[in-house]
């Protein structure tokens, strides 16, 4: 199949790429744009490590065609920290010990962001529902729930330096 040019809006930056129309967003993010913070594993939308935001919604980028999201705002884990400040979720995941091997964490944080952007004060059940598509094999999930709850309570609204 011949390649087509598409324009992707990734973390607020316009990126032009020439891609085979059958290629997934995950593949293009990781290998064409070098954004390997978005992880790959099952490639069939079961594990959630490839979660990114498209139009503010959490999607499994392994089953989204790159060409189908041309021009729509895409946020990856690399787009969260701004001006040397960590996003509150990033701070909270560190503070609450929610990070072990870390491979699920980019997807987990983005799924949590999609929730909190719409529902700033979710119930525990709503947090669990929002993260149900993201497998974590290390933590047993408790500290992840605690981290999201702490952000919802506004505990990480202040400074959060990168160093």
């Amino acid at each position, binding site marked *: 199949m011949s390649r087509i040019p598409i324009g992707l809006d990734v973390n607020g930056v316009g990126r032009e790429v020439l891609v085979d129309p059958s290629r997934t967003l995950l593949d293009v993010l990781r290998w064409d744009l070098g954004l390997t*913070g978005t992880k*790959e594993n099952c490639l069939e939308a079961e594990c959630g490590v490839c979660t990114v935001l498209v139009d503010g919604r959490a999607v499994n980028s392994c089953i989204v065609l790159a060409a189908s999201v041309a021009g729509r705002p895409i946020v990856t884990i690399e787009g*969260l920290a701004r001006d040397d400040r960590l996003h509150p979720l990033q701070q909270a995941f560190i503070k609450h*010990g929610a*990070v072990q*091997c870390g*491979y699920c964490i980019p997807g987990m944080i983005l799924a949590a962001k999609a929730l909190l952007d719409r529902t700033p004060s979710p119930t525990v059940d709503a947090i669990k529902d929002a993260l149900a598509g993201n497998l974590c094999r290390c933590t047993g999930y408790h500290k992840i729930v605690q981290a999201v709850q702490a952000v919802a309570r506004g505990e990480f609204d202040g400074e959060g330096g990168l160093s």
Partner: protein
Amino acid sequence: MNGLRVVGKSVPRSDALPKVTGQAIYGADLSAPGMLHGKVYRSPHPHARILSIDTSRARAVPGVGAVLVASDVPAIRNGVYIDDEPILARDKVRYVGEPVALIAATTPDAADEALHLISVEWALLPVLDDPEAALRPGAVLIHEDWEHLTTHAELTRRENLCGYSRLATGDVDEAFRAADVVVRDRFRGHMVHQGYMEPRAALARIEPNGSITVWSSTQWPFDIRDQLAKLFSRPKEQVRVITTCVGGGFGGKIPLGVEHFATLLAGATGRPVKMITSTAEELTASYPRQGITVEIASGVRKDGTLVGRRARAVLDTGAYAGYGPYFASNVTNQLAGPYRIPALWLEGVAVYTNKTNCGAYRAPTAPKAVFALESHMDRVAQAIDMDPVEFRRRNIYQEGDVAPSGWKLEGVGLGETLEKAARAIGWGEPLPPWRGKGVACAWWATGGGSSSVVLTLNRNGTLSLASGNVEMGTGALTAGVVQILAEEMAVEPEDVSLITGDTDATPYDFGAQASRTVFSVGNAVIRAAEDLRRQLLALAGELLDVKPGRLEVSSGAVRVRGEAAAARAASYAALAEAGLSRGTPLIGRGSYIAPAPDYDPSVFTTHLKPYLASPSFHTHACEVEVDPETGEVRVLRYVVAQDVGFAITPQYVEGQIEGGVVQGLGFALSEEIVMRGGHVLNPNLTDYKMPTILDVPPITTILVEHPAPLGPYGAKNVAEPPCIPVAAAVANAVYHAAGVRVTETPITAERVLRAIRARATSALER
């Protein structure tokens, strides 16, 4: 412990920041200029002769750089205790998923296309998928040449039996005669995968001088180096293994994964080659936890005293022995359990079958053996009409008790874990119908092996620690070891940087396995810090004109003991500068290998694990609800009381416990590699059901601290054992909720409902 500044407190791990920002690089993220993508052609049959292989069409696919079959690779056979496994199947295949051919191509798609164009002519052979059948006289041989294979330990083996170990002490027959009751049971445990989120991955490159460089997310880079050197007949020094971040391992990233395949393809093409395994490959052809059958009998007096035990565990090792002979040994320690029993006859048997080579998964052999043991313990208590907690209370190890092979136990916190777990779950309180509580105990060893570290004082007064260990996700290195170093050198954790897991750049380490990292690397760090402090004090003594004996380290400087005056101090930065200007850089070195306890070897027959060093002790308790209509088990709450010796980083110790319990719940209730006739029926994450965030109950963690005399600050193993007693605790709770004993994992709704109906039927028939 008093006076501690850094250890015992929860500090952020040094690798958390790159992990939350997406900057951490894992094996799966690797790439190199000019890189090719490697794939493995795997056997579709569980047992078959290879009559011919035609790779001509695969070679013709545009972009394909190499296609390799057995005749293209070294004819060596590899193994841990038995060299039984070829690099690529030569004459026959022994399991579905066995590697037969390798392909490298410019894109993954081209490699996939070529994969489908390989054509093999097979002659199918009878399939052995049941270890008991494999042990019968006259069974088809998985390895016809078993008598001629090279071995690396004294083993008992014959035909399909590839390992036999025995732990025997006292006279069990006599004990059973003297017992009031002898209870006999049989249990089965199933095959599960480690479930790490990052697939196994590696990138290999052949250097201009012919040496090999491999990047890999392995847990044990020095072993990967040694195996590559063996397979390719190189000196070890011509192989360099560099680790990336590890996206979970749990034992599954100890053995060779795809490193040797990437190396072969890099050699054949002259280009770097990257390989990454698919989920289907992971669930059919990796190193999962093996299935088990346990027959167990215990003699007990009416007062609750255990007098003897006979047990036999048969481990389904799969097509190649791997760690099987070692597991056959270790399982006997688990069948003994943390109990005083004067007479034991405990056998472990490892058997070849036409399945993938089973391997190490978090506390290998323990979760399934303890499912059997602790279910049985409840049945024994029931037989003498004794409360399960009281029954355990009367038999558990106490401080100073002697283990079966004669070594004295120290730092035994088991009793405290039992009492605290029972109290936290509300043991004995009345419950509504179809609810029940269960309890289970366990013990586990701190792994041994050698660790060395090099500690360099930098010119700005910070410290660089080089260790051949790997941070596999627990925080053992990036928090625990860093905290120990900060404590010992009187600096802050953020003043420590780590260089890890590079076989050319870091000193030898036995790897991130067996819950050994904090213990072994931590002890090596304590020694390196002693060495460095000695150098610092000597140099500062000269500069300050004070006897070194009057000096101490404090807040990143050497000071005169008891004096507050800053003038009489030398900062680490000043000392580093002075050391460099004199040509004597300040570098500390430390090594540690845990000593073996004194034990009686006559207790053992061909046994590779004769003691559990610096053991940890555990009691788990849970409350479940069983749905009488569907048989579904819901775990309502869960309690862990774990004797960790000393918690270096309490928050991360809790994290290990919570994560271990949830893996245990997956094993107990939902996860299974389902096999029929040697074929995996569910090689995907839709049907291989790991717990999601919706599946986990509240978990209460109680840390009990009975220090291990040899542990750094008293710390003992933490990470593996929280997954051990879970299935047993759930099974015992199900019994108390529904009155049915499930003797096979996973404890699915189907099994529970079948047991409930069988009980109803037998009640009607009575």
